[in-house]
Structures are given as structure tokens and as C-alpha cells.
């Protein structure tokens, strides 16, 4: 597949979405339904791989690029992923000049609080999946408390949780 076309298709999906996975229906329409470049199974595998590791959920696009066109496709997809981010700089410059305007501050705070509400909603399915037993409950509660009330680096929480999960598996088999 032409790498520039791949870049443009992914960029189009990104420009029409505002969160990691809201681009998915557009991607599916272009890559699975219209052009038959991917199967639904390949698309799902790419999404799972993109979400299984750290970093933005949008990384599944790099996996799509890799599936469609190998390493050059992954690089093309990575560039598509980065491109919209730099659109924020002109907005930032404009807003920066008006940052002390009370109306701008009120609007920004409304947006942040709304984002928090949305995050709470999207955390419910994850919590349901994660609550698999007493160990998961302890890890979840400890992570909540450490992140909310201490300055402990979040990397330590992740590393400790993974080590604990591994240790329990080693002990209980």
C-alpha cells in the first residue's frame, strides 16, 4: 500500500476524533469495509496491542500501519499520530494571550471538570474487568490512595503491581 495514502487515511480519522478510540469507526470503515486492507480480527488485535502497553490508546494506529505495510507502515502511522498534536500550538498562542481573562478560565475549568466526569464513566468497565479477586481489590485501593494522596511516581505503582501479580502466580502456580 502507498505509504502516503496510509498516512492520509489515518490522519483523516484522527482529525475527525477527539479521544483515543473514537477514530475506530472511521478506521474500520476505510480499512475493513471499503478497502479490505484488514479483517475485523486484525483490527481487534491491533486495538488490543495498542491498549495493552503504556502510552496513548491511539497507538493502535501504529499497529494498523504495521499490519498493513510493515515497519514503513508503522512509521507512516506514527507520523500521522503526531501531526494533529501540533495543531494545538496556534490555539495555545491565542489562548495564552487571553489566559487571564476570567471567562477563559471559567470555560477551561468547566472543560476539565467535564473531562473528569467522562473519565469516571470510562473507568467503570475497566474496574469491572480488573476486580478478579482480593489481590486485585488491594492493588486497586492501594493505587488509588498512593496516587491521590502522595507524590509517589506512578511508575513505581505499575512496577509494584506487576511484581506482586507475578509473585502470587509463582507462589500459587
Amino acid at each position: 500500500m502507498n505509504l502516503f495514502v496510509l498516512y492520509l487515511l489515518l490522519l483523516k480519522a484522527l482529525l475527525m476524533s477527539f479521544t483515543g478510540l473514537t477514530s475506530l469507526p472511521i478506521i474500520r470503515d476505510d480499512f475493513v469495509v471499503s478497502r479490505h486492507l484488514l479483517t475485523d480480527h486484525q483490527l481487534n488485535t491491533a486495538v488490543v496491542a495498542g491498549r495493552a502497553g503504556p502510552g496513548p490508546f491511539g497507538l493502535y494506529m501504529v499497529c494498523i500501519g504495521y499490519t498493513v505495510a510493515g515497519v514503513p507502515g508503522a512509521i507512516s502511522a506514527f507520523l500521522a499520530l503526531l501531526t494533529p498534536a501540533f495543531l494545538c500550538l496556534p490555539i495555545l498562542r491565542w489562548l495564552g494571550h487571553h489566559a487571564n481573562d476570567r471567562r477563559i478560565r471559567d470555560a477551561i475549568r468547566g472543560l476539565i471538570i467535564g473531562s473528569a466526569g467522562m473519565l469516571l464513566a470510562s473507568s467503570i468497565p475497566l474496574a469491572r474487568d480488573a476486580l478478579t479477586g482480593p489481590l486485585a481489590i488491594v492493588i486497586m485501593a492501594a493505587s488509588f490512595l498512593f496516587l491521590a494522596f502522595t507524590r509517589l511516581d506512578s511508575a513505581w505503582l505499575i512496577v509494584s503491581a506487576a511484581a506482586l501479580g507475578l509473585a502470587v502466580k509463582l507462589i500459587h502456580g
Partner: protein
Amino acid sequence: MSRPSLKSLTGAFFRIGNTTFGGGLLTMTVLGRELVDRQKWLSASDYELAFAVARVTPGTSIIAFCAAAGWMILGAAGAIAAAIALTAPSAILAVLLLQGFESGAEHPFVMSALGATVAAVSGMMGATVLVLVRPFSKGFVRTVRTLLIGGGAFLASWKFNFSPVVILVVSTLTGLVWGQFSKDDGK
């Protein structure tokens, strides 16, 4: 505010971006603790501005946040370095994971470690909600605003499946209108 070297800035985004699971909002909150509270490279109001701009920029908001925060701290070099440091290693890992999934390698020890990690991420997401709204919830009037906007956004997303764009627009407008009718000075 102190001004870091490009290497220090890249290191901070690399470390946090590639060890924080759970998506953009969580990563933005953890980066806020690092950039505002620990390193003091950004003021709280600059952080709020970068956060808001990232949320209204199309595409992946955490990468836009990195570009915005990097720009505020060290200009164009900071923006590019922050965005690449946060994204490139995770992208390589995602491709490696994809290869692993395709070859059917789901080792039980790896799955156990991943399960524990998902539990940690889930707890961290709850904490992120608290960390995000805490600065805006001091006093009765602000707490009512937080409950109204945050609770409304929660219900609109969870119960009624509204589009994120619609929810963010309504939240932003509600914040604006609330400010016009409230005696709160907004600081």
C-alpha cells in the same frame, strides 16, 4: 518557574509517558504532578491551559498535551521532544505486543502480571478523577459546580452514551455560564 535542559525535559516525558498505563487523561494528570508539583517547570494555570487546549485539539489529546506543555517550557524543541519521547517507545512496544499476540504468546505469568497492572490502572483512574477536580472544589459553591458539571458529564457518558465532543462543549459552556452568574472570583 525553573527552566530545565532539553535532556531533562525529554527524560521526564519519556519516563512518565512510557510507564503510565490507562490512557491520556491519566497520563496528563501524572505529568501534571511531575511538571507542576515536583519539578516546577509549569505553573498550575499553564498546566490547566495546556490540558484544555489538548482536549479541544483533534486526534490524541495526550500527544497534544505534550506538544503544548513542551512548547510552554522550552519552545519548539521542547514540543517536538516531549511528543516523541512520550510516544515513540510505547509505539515500538505496541508493535512488539502485536507480534506477540499474533504468534499466540500468552504466557500465564505475563497474563498474571498484566492482570495486576490493570487493577493498579483502575485504581489510578479513580485517583485521577479526584486529582483533577480537587483544585476546583474548595468551598460550597465550587463543590456544587464540580458536582453539577462532573456529575452531568459522568451521566451523559455512562448512562446516555453522548459523544465526548458534545459533553466537552456543554461542560465548557456550563463552566463559562456558571462563572458569569457566580460571585466566585474564579482564582
